[in-house]
């Protein structure tokens, strides 16, 4: 039972290069999220998805794009990497909660992808 798997775990880019981070979950969760974690700032939400084929912006979406073509996968793309995007990126998933539709339940996190942009 893998849970949430992120690839790659480490990557070094030069400014202006593009790349895609892949998140895969095997728990049949409806909701998926991409966060970035920077020292002293906790986690900030980049984009999220409430179901296959849907995406929405989070707190810090600029410079990133996402796609959720399959329920189990959530891709995070950087079209033109900048040094400010040096960070640790975490993917998370969450099951649909019963009861009130707006209730956010427990998130299951991947182990992170460490990206350095030179």
């Amino acid at each position, binding site marked *: 039972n893998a849970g949430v798997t992120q690839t790659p775990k480490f990557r070094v880019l030069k400014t202006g290069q593009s790349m895609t981070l892949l998140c895969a979950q095997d728990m049949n969760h409806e909701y998926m999220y991409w966060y970035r974690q920077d020292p002293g700032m*906790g986690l900030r939400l980049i984009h999220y998805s409430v179901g296959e084929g849907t995406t929405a912006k989070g707190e810090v979406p600029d410079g990133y794009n996402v796609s959720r073509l399959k329920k189990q996968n959530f891709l995070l793309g950087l079209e033109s990497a900048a040094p400010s995007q040096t960070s640790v990126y975490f993917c998370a998933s969450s099951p649909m909660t019963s009861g009130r539709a707006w209730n956010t339940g*427990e*998130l299951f*996190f991947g182990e*992170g992808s460490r990206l350095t942009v030179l």
Partner: protein
Amino acid sequence: SQQGEEDPQALSIQEGENATMNCSYKTSINNLQWYRQNSGRGLVHLILIRSNEREKHSGRLRVTLDTSKKSSSLLITASRAADTASYFCATAPLGSARQLTFGSGTQLTVLP
């Protein structure tokens, strides 16, 4: 902007002592959650407390929630060296469906 703010930023205690971490937030919430992160690893969910609950227990963990003060506390009793980690509170704000907003965390060090 950060919804939750943990206090203290860092805490160092001896094994066997209790550790208390506090979280304050700004807007009305649906629920509040606490997560743990070991160095270099992903976050792991510890406990969720709903806005209509005041206290919740899970093993050596005790969480309280005071919605009038917009604050929560996490108590770890009889701490162990293995409890050394960063602890984050996360809030599910009302009206922000299916999103969690994380604080900047408390780094707990338990000395053997």
